[in-house]
């Protein structure tokens, strides 16, 4: 059974033998249950193969570079979203928080003349403040995350427009540090931006934290069964509050990446990315019911969405059909998740 797994860890081989192997189908289900990132990995490989076959330009370095840049912002938002969804929550405000944070970063430096690091620090403070606000409402007032973030989405959106007056700040007016995330360098003919690297660093850091620290284990335990986690002596409310704070900090980094990516800070760019971030998480195999999923699955999910949109548009498919395809992907992904869970409970 172990030869079927393409996940890196080999220490689970013994455990694999422990699983029931009654039918090939249940074996697949167990495998997917054990490694939720396997199915998005298969989808991504298949998508790359198909789009590469349809159009030669797809696999050209310049196009792959474009895909990576398109994924950088959504991928970072999706990382924050993964943390929240792992605790069986959902955050509709990620896009709005990012936009508010990016406007604060840009205006503080360009209009108020503050040094660039201070501006970025203020953007981080906005992200943390938004996370604290959402986390407070979820943990203290015990409101459902969906409602909390639906409310805060509108609040942050209004604050953004009130604060910025609806005006866009151009990248050319900003200090170089702010647009650093859009700077490119070349590896093997493919251009990478600093923003893409920052996203990857965040993914690596969070993967290590979730796997290797007590806090990470508590996130999974609290998301899986909050009552069991509480009885085991975990302060579930504290874990949840820290999740929203961490997500807020990640959103501030997303704001920085967004400024570099679009070479501007605009109150109108990226608000709708909240749904794209949820899409990436769900396609990446993280369960909306909490406690199951990995950040690597989310990265694969973000890449799948990016590859689908890019590949379909290279193939000359109408943008509406791209959206259609992403919608089908979401429903299939959630169906697969349900099927996996049903075999287990």
């Amino acid at each position, binding site marked *: 059974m172990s030869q079927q797994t393409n996940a890196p860890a080999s*220490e*689970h081989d*013994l*455990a694999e033998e*422990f*699983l029931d192997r009654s039918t090939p189908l249940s074996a697949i289900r*167990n495998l997917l249950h*054990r490694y939720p990132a396997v199915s998005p990995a298969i989808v991504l490989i298949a998508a790359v193969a198909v789009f590469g076959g349809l159009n030669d330009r797809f696999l050209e370095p310049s196009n792959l570079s474009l895909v990576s840049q398109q994924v950088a912002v959504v991928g970072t938002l999706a990382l924050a979203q993964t943390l929240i969804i792992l605790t069986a929550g959902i955050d509709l405000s990620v896009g709005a928080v990012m936009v508010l944070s990016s406007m604060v970063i840009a205006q503080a430096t360009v209009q108020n003349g503050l040094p660039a690091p201070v501006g970025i620090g203020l953007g981080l403070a906005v992200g943390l403040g938004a996370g604290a606000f959402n986390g407070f409402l979820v943990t203290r007032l015990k409101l459902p995350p969906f409602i909390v973030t639906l409310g805060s989405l509108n609040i942050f959106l209004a604050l953004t427009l009130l604060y910025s007056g609806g005006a866009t700040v151009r990248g050319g007016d900003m200090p170089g540090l702010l647009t650093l995330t859009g700077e490119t360098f070349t590896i093997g003919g493919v251009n990478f931006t600093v923003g893409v690297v920052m996203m990857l660093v965040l993914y690596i850091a969070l993967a290590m934290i979730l796997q*290797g*620290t*007590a*806090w990470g*284990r*508590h996130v*999974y*335990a609290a998301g*899986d*069964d909050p*009552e*069991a*986690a*509480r*009885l*085991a*002596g*975990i*302060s579930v409310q504290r874990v949840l509050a820290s999740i929203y704070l961490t997500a807020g900090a990640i959103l501030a980094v997303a704001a920085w990446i967004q400024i570099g990516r679009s070479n501007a800070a605009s109150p109108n760019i990226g608000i709708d990315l909240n749904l794209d971030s949820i899409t990436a998480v769900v396609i990446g195999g993280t369960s909306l019911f909490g*406690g*199951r999923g990995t950040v690597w699955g989310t990265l694969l999910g973000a890449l799948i969405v990016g590859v689908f949109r890019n590949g379909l548009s290279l193939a000359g498919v109408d943008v509406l059909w791209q959206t259609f395809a992403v919608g089908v992907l979401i429903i299939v992904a959630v169906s697969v998740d349900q099927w996996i869970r049903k075999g*287990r409970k």
Partner: protein
Amino acid sequence: MSTDSASRGEPILQASSLVKTFGRVVGLDGASLELYPGEVLAVIGDNGAGKSTLIKCLTGAEVPDEGEIRLEGRRVHFKRPQDARAHGIETVYQTLAVAPALDVAANLFLGRELRKPGPLGTVLRAVDKKRMRRQAREELSNLGIKTLQDVTVPVENLSGGQRQAVAVARAAAFGSKVVVLDEPTAALGVRESRQVLEMIAGLRDRGVPVILISHDMPQVFEVADRIHVQRLGRRAATISPRTHSMTDAVAIMTGAAQGSAS
């Protein structure tokens, strides 16, 4: 019971006149309980008699309004389950309170993970998976739990009895003073219940005092040294399975008979 307690020495865990109300509902109305070293004390009672509330007060899940709890003679105040745990009172719940996605070793150490030595552990707070797995294996074999072969299996892949074995092992491991089992077999089949009963007997043989809350009279009479009968928020009696029958116990539970109250 007075002769009994004299031979048993001081109670390791003692609750006196606990009162707990939930709005207008009186959960505990002056309930007392004593647990002596090396015994299995069963707690029985009808629904609403205050069994669960009593146990929750002892394990820190609820804070009593009045009364006092003493552990090894010293007064203790538990505000949260962690407090009781920190004092060595461990609880196993009927709901199989484990984290399904985590493996056996991670569940045993849930909430008290071991960190890696050096800056990796202190600064980066990295957990020491190898050490936890090794210690988990040792603890399981010390407890004589043979149903769990592999500590790297996610708990959701285990049977109900195996999951409860994980929960019992978590409670009994790491030198706990008192193990409380709240309806540990309620969600289990016959054969799995038997394994849990054997584990309870094993705990007593290792000198760990056990409080067992159960509805299952045959189980209670099989494994308990003494039986605390809870009724209407107080202790109606503490009886011995050697001198009382199941019929007596039911009569005291329902108020049909007065127990030899202590």
